[in-house]
C-alpha cells in the first residue's frame, strides 16, 4: 500500500483519513454486533461486508428480513440503496487502472468516500488516492464488522458520534462542490428534494431520486458550464 504521506493533501490529510477510518470502523462494529445479535453468526456479516461493501444496504436488507419481508423485497431495497454506485462508478471511471482484472477489482472499492475524496485531488493524483482510500475504507468496514460480531451486541457507535462525523464529512464535501450561483441552486434542489422524498421512501432511494432531479435542473440551467470553468 502506498505511503499515506505520498498522497497527503488538505483533502485527504492524515487527520481526515484517520477520522474517516475511525468512523467507518465504528459503523462496521455497530453492523457486525447487530447482525451477530440477530443470529447471523460471525461469518455471514463479515462475508456480506467483504463482498457487498454497502453499509446502508446491508443494514436495510437485514431489517426487511427481520420484519418478515420477502427475500425479493430485501434484495430490491438493498439494490435501490446501492443504485448510486452506478453514478459513482461513472465518476471515477476515467481514473481506474486500464488492465481489465485490476479495473474490476478497483470497481469493487467504489463507494461514497473513496470516490468523493479522490475527486478533490488533481487529476494525476486521483487514481492513487482512490485506490488508497478505497482499500482503507474496505479494510475498515470489514475489520469493524468482524470486531463488532466478535464483541457482541452491547456496542453503541452513536454514543461516540460516528454518524455525526460521517454527516459532517458530507457537509464539507457538498460545500466544496459549490462554485457559483447555478451550483448553489443545484445543490439546494438536491438537498430539498432528498428531504421531501425521505418523508415517503427509504433514504437511499431518496438520494437517487434527488440526484436525478438535481441533474435535470442543473443541466437545464447550465451548471455544467459553470463547473467546467
Amino acid at each position, binding site marked *: 500500500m502506498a505511503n499515506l504521506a505520498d498522497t497527503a493533501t488538505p483533502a485527504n490529510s492524515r487527520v481526515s483519513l484517520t477520522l474517516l477510518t475511525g468512523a467507518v470502523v465504528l459503523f462496521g462494529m455497530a453492523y457486525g454486533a447487530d447482525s451477530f445479535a440477530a443470529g447471523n453468526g460471525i461469518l455471514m456479516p463479515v462475508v456480506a461486508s467483504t463482498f457487498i461493501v454497502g453499509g446502508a444496504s446491508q443494514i436495510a436488507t437485514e431489517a426487511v428480513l427481520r420484519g418478515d419481508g420477502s427475500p425479493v423485497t430485501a434484495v430490491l431495497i438493498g439494490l435501490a440503496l446501492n443504485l448510486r454506485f452506478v453514478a459513482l462508478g461513472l465518476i471515477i471511471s476515467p481514473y481506474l487502472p486500464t488492465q481489465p482484472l485490476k479495473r474490476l477489482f478497483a*470497481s469493487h472499492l467504489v463507494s461514497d468516500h473513496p470516490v468523493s475524496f479522490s475527486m478533490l485531488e488533481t487529476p494525476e493524483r486521483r487514481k492513487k488516492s482512490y485506490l488508497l482510500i478505497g482499500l482503507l475504507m474496505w479494510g475498515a468496514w470489514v475489520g469493524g464488522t468482524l470486531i463488532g460480531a466478535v464483541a457482541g451486541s452491547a456496542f453503541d457507535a452513536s*454514543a461516540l*458520534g460516528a454518524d455525526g462525523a460521517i454527516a459532517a464529512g458530507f457537509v464539507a464535501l457538498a460545500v466544496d462542490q459549490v462554485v457559483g450561483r447555478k451550483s448553489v441552486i443545484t445543490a439546494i434542489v*438536491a438537498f430539498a428534494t*432528498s428531504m421531501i422524498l425521505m418523508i415517503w421512501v427509504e433514504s437511499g432511494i431518496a438520494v437517487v431520486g434527488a440526484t436525478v432531479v438535481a441533474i435535470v435542473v442543473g443541466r437545464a440551467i447550465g451548471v455544467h458550464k459553470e463547473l467546467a470553468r
Partner: protein
Amino acid sequence: MTWPVLITLAILTFAFKAAGPMIFAKRPMPAWLDDIVRILPLAIYPALVASSVFGSPEGVTFDARAIAAAAVLVLVILVRKRVFGFAMLLGAVVTAGVRALFGP
C-alpha cells in the same frame, strides 16, 4: 440475512459498481454523459447530506446530527478552506456531546 440474499445482493451490487468503468474502459464517454458526470458530485453530495443528517428508519428526524452539521457548515463557510479532518472531528464531538447532555 440469508446466504441466497447475500450472494444475490453482492453480485448485483458489484455489477452496479463495475458497469460504468467496464463500459467506458476503452471508449470515451459521450458528451451528454460527460456533462452529467460533471454535475453528479454536486447533485449527489447535498442529497447525501440530507440523508445522513436527517434520515432515520422513521423518515425525517431532527437530532444531534443536525446541530453538528450546522456547526460544521458554519466552520466550512467561515474558514473557506478544505478542512475535512476538523469538520469530521467537530461533527463527532458535537454529536456525542449533544447526546451525552440531552440523550439520544
